[in-house]
């Protein structure tokens, strides 16, 4: 299974959480809303790119629109592997926390 760091996990959840039309600006807002932290665009971009390369995220280009100066926007979406990774990690963590609770 794909082990995820806390930050990767958070980003995947954010991509899912924003839902349709997830792109840099609204992913950043989503993260800010939940973590209260101002994320830098560069960091978000790189992290998402890394996740994309691992196949956890898919991207597709939107229609070029006049508002965007005739440029297409790249939207992010969870891939099937992304969903799987999130589920696996959740299970793993639940198990480990349970053990912790039993012994602590």
């Amino acid at each position: 299974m794909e082990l995820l760091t806390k930050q990767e996990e958070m980003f995947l959840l954010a991509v899912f959480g924003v839902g349709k039309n997830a792109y840099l600006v609204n992913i950043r807002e989503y993260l800010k809303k939940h973590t209260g932290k101002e994320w830098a665009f560069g960091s978000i971009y790189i992290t998402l790119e890394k996740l994309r390369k691992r196949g956890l995220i898919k991207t597709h280009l939107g229609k070029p629109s006049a508002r965007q100066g005739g440029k297409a926007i790249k939207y992010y979406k969870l891939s099937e592997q992304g969903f799987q990774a999130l589920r696996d990690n959740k299970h793993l963590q639940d198990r480990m926390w349970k053990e912790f609770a039993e012994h602590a």
Partner: protein
Amino acid sequence: MRKNPPRFCRRIFQFYIPEYDWDYFFHSIDEVYQGLRQSRGKWIADIWYWTQLGKSLPLLVSHAVGGNMAMLNNYFRTGLRSILRHKGYSALNMMGLAVGLAVCILIFLWVQDELSYDRFHVNADRIFRLIEFEDLSSGEVLVFTQQGPELAAALKSDFPEIEESTRFYTLRNRLVRFGDRQFYENGFAFADPQFLAMFTFPLTKGDPLQALADPSSIVLSERMAKKYFDRQDPIGKILHVDNQMDFVITGILENIPSNSHLQFDYLVPFENMKHFGEQVTGWADFYCDTYVLLYENIDYKEFEPKIKDIVPRYSKGSNLYEQLQPLTHIRLFSNAILTVQTDGDIKYVVIFSLIAIFILLNACINFMNLTTARSGQRAREISMRKVVGARRQELVRQFFGESILMAFISLIFAVGLVYLLLPVFNQLSGKDMTFGILRHMHVISGLLGITLSAGLIAGIYPALFLSAFQPAFVLKGGRDFGQKGGGFRRVLVIFQFVMTTILIVGTVGVYRQMNFLRKQNLGYDKDQVMCLRLPRELSPKVDLIETTLERNPGVLHTAAASTVPGKRSGLLTLDEWEGRDTEDRIEMGLVSVDPGFLSTFKLEIAEGRFFSNDFPTDRKGAVVINEAAVRAMGMEDPIGKRLGRGSQIIGVVKDFHMRTLHHKVAPLMLTMNDMELQNVFVKIRPADIPKTISSVEAAWRSLAPEYPFEFQFLDERLEELYQADKRLGKIINAFATLSLFVACLGLFGLASFVAERRTKEIGIRKVLGASIPAIFYLLARDFIKWITIATVIAVPLSAYAMARYLNSYAYHFRIGPVLFLIPAAMILGIALLTVSWQALRTAAVDPVKSLRYE
């Protein structure tokens, strides 16, 4: 209207983000930027944009590098090739950088050591020292670290915020004896039993909570245990102190780390103070250090005002007030405190850090200079790369790779240099640092960080400048790349020499100040005076001792006093004197002397007479004051006037420097109180000193057989008081030399480059009949000009720095033009030598050869 975000910032983003994502990425970030710009204005928005870059840069860089291992390997390889191809040049460059880095590492270690003071205590952030203030009516504020002995207990019982408190006091020169081993020991400390629980001074033997419970217990350090007991177990043994007190050893301390401001070898319960002639009660008779341990989560800044006026609450009429000083500040922020002798000062930390940065910058500048200067030779290589299809980014990365690689090779040399230089540096700085400290993780990461940034700084100009060549132009045979950036190079060289000049002026200045101090007339004669310690019990026998010693033909005079010149004397606050017409009180130094004091130190009498054995009344209330005291009291015709409680002035001595030259001559009062005499001074003839010393020793042994014979010459003792200043001088000297070396290395490289580039021109000139001196002048002219400009810039800067430094002395030499002329001439001379070696070599070459060149 759409407005653009900072272009340069965008450029950097573009460098790291693949081109196919540019539109998309910038669209997103600009969306927020535009919103911000409309709502908060251009400035805020621009700053936001930059912080966006700053925050994500580490990730962007690591991604760019990590994502491309193959490319990285390639940069590494081409870098190595380029280094090896130009061995001489690379060696020069790396030598400079290695020296710069080595200096940086040494200073880094030094700073690290200074900052580490007192941090080893587990409770370091909860322990505070009390400092006491007194406002004088003159507006001056006196700061002490010491308080009345009852304060510690009062603090603890009055304030629930305080978990624990302790008093602390050290005595010097205690006579410690076990069996037949006896020595005078410094660092004999007194503290309350909870001291060992508050501070982290671990015991190797004994229980820290119980060790000081019994009043007659003593804890001593491992090294002292070894000195007195060798391999025996010291626990339970009895030490005799000053031939009057017995202490049972209850614990052995690990040796106190050198980075602790509390230094001691013996520790006994505080109440024993009373056996050493001091009061352990009261608020004003005796003063000791007070430390408190606050409970966790107490903000000391909030708590501090509550304790401010605790002293007047207990001791009516007192105008003293208290503050807390964090334990970790004590080493570096205690300069303003009167009762502290410290050579730690945040000022030095800042100065040395600046010097380190300067020297490293110098080395980086060399690197940039040499690389850009050589760009002409590399232009073809770069152009070829471009033609074959290298993108600019890749070239930039290649240059950065090269400079970073060089920086890291230099680091290896630098670490070797540090290994060699550390013992010397330890001696210079009076520290005890070991190479082992380099093994610590945070030190290693610090070093790698410094090296990486040095590589980046050094590579930034070549990377941006060289990668911008137009291949078509270069390959067509366009020339003059070395010329381009010449202005920039000039600025860098001038900057280098400005810094070097400042450092060298600093060295000369410190040296001259030390010389000035040595030659300064102290107002008394310090030569051939032996200082002997007089045990308290022998004070009544002082006359007998002196007359016995004076019988020796080698001895000229003897004297006794309560203190030694140069050392702090007792202080007295005087608020009564005849004809007092102000409300001012005077802080006056108080020293007990005997009649011999005048002749031994060759003091001069300004008015009246000195103490004499012919006047028995001199022992009761007669005082001699110095001229400064007369001035301070505004007295006219002081002889016979009354002073304080029943004292009468019998004479006035001319001012002399009872303290070091850091201080102005202060009002001083001499009395004749036999009970306080603790030092005997023996003025001897300059001839046959060893013989005199041995006969003085013999006399001492017969007079005081139970005390060891230990002495020190006064002039040597005084020298020690200026050790911190001397140390500063030596360190600055060493760094100035290194800085000059690095700067000259750069100059040498540049000179050889210029000479090489003009080989053909020189050949033609020679063919046309130019003489060797003319060509030499042609080559050296520029450098002379740069260095002259540097000197002009450096003079006011260094004059300012010098004036700041000399301010810490009450007496200092006058800053004159010579101070600047010597360094300037020296630097110009050395720089010329450096340049002329190359210039002469080029000028002397057979023109046929130079014309065939290329």
